């Protein structure tokens, strides 16, 4: 199944890309996709998305389509879904 991943702000800069398409066997949860992205991108991804113990960092906002999923990384993804990883910003 194909999922489009959108990156924002610091994450976009760290990975040097605004988006990418991931094609993985389904069924697939958000957590499984994040683990795949961690293996794919390594430290630049991990330091912004994961906490020290390798768990999901509490300062990343995850959206599937136009809905925030809160902390629920067991959310199931569908073929064609769009996942957005929003790293928080405070500048001005």
């Amino acid at each position, binding site marked *: 199944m194909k999922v489009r991943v959108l990156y924002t702000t610091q994450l976009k800069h760290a990975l040097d890309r*605004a988006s990418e398409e991931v094609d993985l066997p389904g069924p697939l949860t958000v957590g499984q996709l994040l683990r795949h992205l961690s293996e794919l991108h390594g430290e630049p991804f991990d*330091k*912004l998305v994961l906490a020290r113990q390798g768990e999901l960092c509490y300062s990343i*906002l995850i959206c599937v389509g136009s809905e925030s999923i809160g*902390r629920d990384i067991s959310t199931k993804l569908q073929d064609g879904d769009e996942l957005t990883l*929003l790293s928080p910003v*405070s*500048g*001005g």
Partner: protein
Amino acid sequence: MQELTPEERAIYEWQIWSPEFGESGQERLKNASVLVTRCGGLGSVVAYELAAAGIGKLVIAHRGQIEPSDLNRQLLMTHDGLGSSRVESARRRLLDLNPRLEIEAVPENVGEENVAQLVGQADLIVDCAPLFEERFLLNREAVAQEKPMIECAMYDLEAHITTIIPGKSPCLCCLYPERPQAWKRQFPVFGAVSGMVACMGAMEAIKVIAGFGKLLTGKLWIGDLREMAFRTINIRRNPSCQVCGTRPG
């Protein structure tokens, strides 16, 4: 409630024509107070637009003196003022535009020692702080004092904004419970980007105060001016939020 003077009716005539706003909306602005912190790329434009719109009182908080690197975006600062107080420059520029405006200019950034007093002086807060520590303090105090807060932020050519109504919509800590570990103080910024989201923040403040239009409550607007892509995401309250989780929805 203080009524509009003939001079004010003349100045604000063109926005009083706006449907659902009218003279009653203008009177609400005149009788309202807003805390803007800080007065940088975001806060300068928020404060200037609110002053232009006829807000009654602004509380502005910003420590320090004007530096060269302020001048690409902090529109209340001037080249002639390099080395002088930021908040005094802001006060002067705001009064040049609107001499009827009451201004409380505080030469301090938000901290644990002043946050309750600063928030207590305003009906609404527009959060324009560059540090997450300041943003989290403002969020905590706004929720505690049940004051609406507009949350404006930007990074490079991207901007985020949401409107927080305590007890009704997600607060900042519902979205980001912790300070981001990898976050750095330094960020790329064009004044046109911070100014754009600042104008949106000022308009949200005007709508909250005057009570019209749809608000960004429960929604996070995100815009990317590099891609010219704009969208709104539905956000939810976190029932276990340490700041607002125990408040009734």
